[in-house]
């Protein structure tokens, strides 16, 4: 491995860390509309621009729908683009999310994950991004503040890669990560361009070479264009390998599509997205010392879905618990649960899977809860099954 850059140890909130990464990425356009718990990101960016630390157009739009529309235009013009939102803001962007991916407009959007109305709630869950699951975006999840910083830098490089050209969301749990101060290492400014060269967009709008953008495609071509989008996403895992290796060279930190703790040789595995992974890992370490054979896994990349990695990882265990911080109302369970069920079924793995739906609207998931879930997973492996399919964790009945 090549030399690791001189790093700087510091401490930041998740939102600040994202804004710092965006500044170092030297974006050209930031268009956003403030919404809790993302607000600090764009506040910091507006300060960077006002103080002359970042040479970018900072555009406060009149709504999130306009913010993301501005981002699509700017991206197609060849600019490096960032936006940030959460919850209702992401919901308001929804139709343009599809346009951004299918027009192949790379951009990075931080989502400080927050519950959706109604009832009104500003705290963490993943209902916002799960509604955007099938929009053709790449969705990354940070488990701590360091990852929120790292993944933001990596997201630009991944999305702008000529083989990909797709928008990327970087998800950080609202308040739990967005507003928590954690220690992290940041790259020195001069190291960033080496990892992340300026954007070189092959279809940039150019008056001397007129082109039609966002053309109409009737039934005779529409499906072919949609397959192009799917194929671009299929190429992400291999490009991710290159991006993460190159990031490891400057940072010393390695990111696989699925991170895991003590999965090898475990009887049961608990899978979760976002900051909950840290809580589970912390408790699993102690329980393993007691002899409980249970591991933990978390998806850094949720779309495209890392099916092969998960099929291998879960192929030899006896039971799985999938934690969902969102729900498919009227459906079979949470979105991650149904994805993992499908992965296991079509890879011929027949093991019991329990869905734990937890933390909606920011309800705390404590180390005590993590211990109960991990013990439940081990018990499921021992008994060869779970008494229920889906558990709404800690709900009052």
């Amino acid at each position, binding site marked *: 491995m090549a030399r690791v850059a001189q790093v700087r140890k510091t401490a930041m909130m998740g939102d600040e860390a994202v804004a710092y990464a965006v500044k170092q990425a030297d974006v050209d356009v930031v268009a956003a509309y403030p919404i809790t718990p993302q607000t600090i990101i764009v506040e910091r960016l507006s300060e960077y621009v006002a103080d002359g630390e970042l040479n970018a157009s900072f555009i406060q739009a009149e709504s999130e729908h306009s913010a993301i529309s501005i981002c699509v235009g700017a991206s197609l013009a060849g600019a490096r683009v960032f936006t940030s939102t959460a919850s209702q803001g992401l919901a308001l962007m929804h139709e343009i999310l599809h346009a951004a991916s*299918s027009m192949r407009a790379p951009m990075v959007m931080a989502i400080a994950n927050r519950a959706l109305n109604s009832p009104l709630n500003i705290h963490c869950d993943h209902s916002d991004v799960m509604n955007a699951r099938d929009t053709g975006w790449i969705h990354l999840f940070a488990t701590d503040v360091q990852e929120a910083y790292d993944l933001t830098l990596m997201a630009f490089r991944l999305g702008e890669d000529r083989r990909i*050209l797709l928008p990327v969301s970087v998800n950080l749990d609202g308040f739990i990560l967005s507003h928590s101060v954690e220690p992290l290492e940041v790259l020195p400014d001069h190291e960033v361009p080496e990892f992340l060269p300026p954007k070189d967009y092959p279809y940039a709008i150019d008056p001397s*070479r*007129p*082109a*039609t953008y966002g*053309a109409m495609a009737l039934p005779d*071509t529409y499906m072919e264009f949609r397959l*192009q989008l799917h194929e671009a996403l299929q190429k992400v895992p291999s490009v991710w390998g290159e991006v993460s290796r190159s990031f490891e060279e400057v940072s010393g930190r390695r990111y696989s599509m699925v991170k895991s703790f003590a999965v090898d040789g475990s009887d049961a595995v608990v899978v979760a997205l976002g900051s909950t992974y840290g809580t589970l890992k912390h408790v699993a370490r102690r329980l393993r010392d007691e002899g409980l054979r249970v591991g933990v896994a978390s998806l850094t990349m949720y779309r495209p879905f890392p099916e092969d990695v998960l099929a291998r990882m879960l192929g030899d265990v006896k039971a799985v618990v999938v934690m969902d911080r969102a729900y498919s109302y009227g459906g079979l369970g949470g979105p991650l649960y149904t994805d993992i069920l499908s992965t296991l079924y079509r890879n011929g793995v027949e093991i019991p899977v329990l869905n734990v739906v937890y933390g909606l609207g920011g309800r705390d998931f404590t180390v005590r809860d993590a211990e109960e879930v991990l013990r439940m997973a081990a018990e499921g492996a021992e008994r060869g099954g779970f008494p229920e399919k889906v558990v709404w964790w800690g709900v009052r009945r």
Partner: protein
Amino acid sequence: MLEKIIRGEFGYEDLPPAAIISPSPTSPSYKTGVWRTEKPVIDPAKCVKCLLCWVFCPDMSIKRLEDDSVKIDYDYCKGCGICSEVCPTKAIRMVEEV
């Protein structure tokens, strides 16, 4: 390639990525006249050169000539029949396509 695409001879990788199409414009090569089921036919003897059909045609498929007589561009006329409706002398008849 464009001609092949219009004829339906392509795979998904042959299409321009993200439907970003250059050079532009491409709509002239899409002969929408094939959508037509009835075509307008002008009787020059009845035409009084009022140009109402030229004004009302939604597809700019009525061509105005030097002497203000009109001609139909069948490459793009979709056969909507508006010209025939607005003609005050009933000089435009809609005839079934064969």
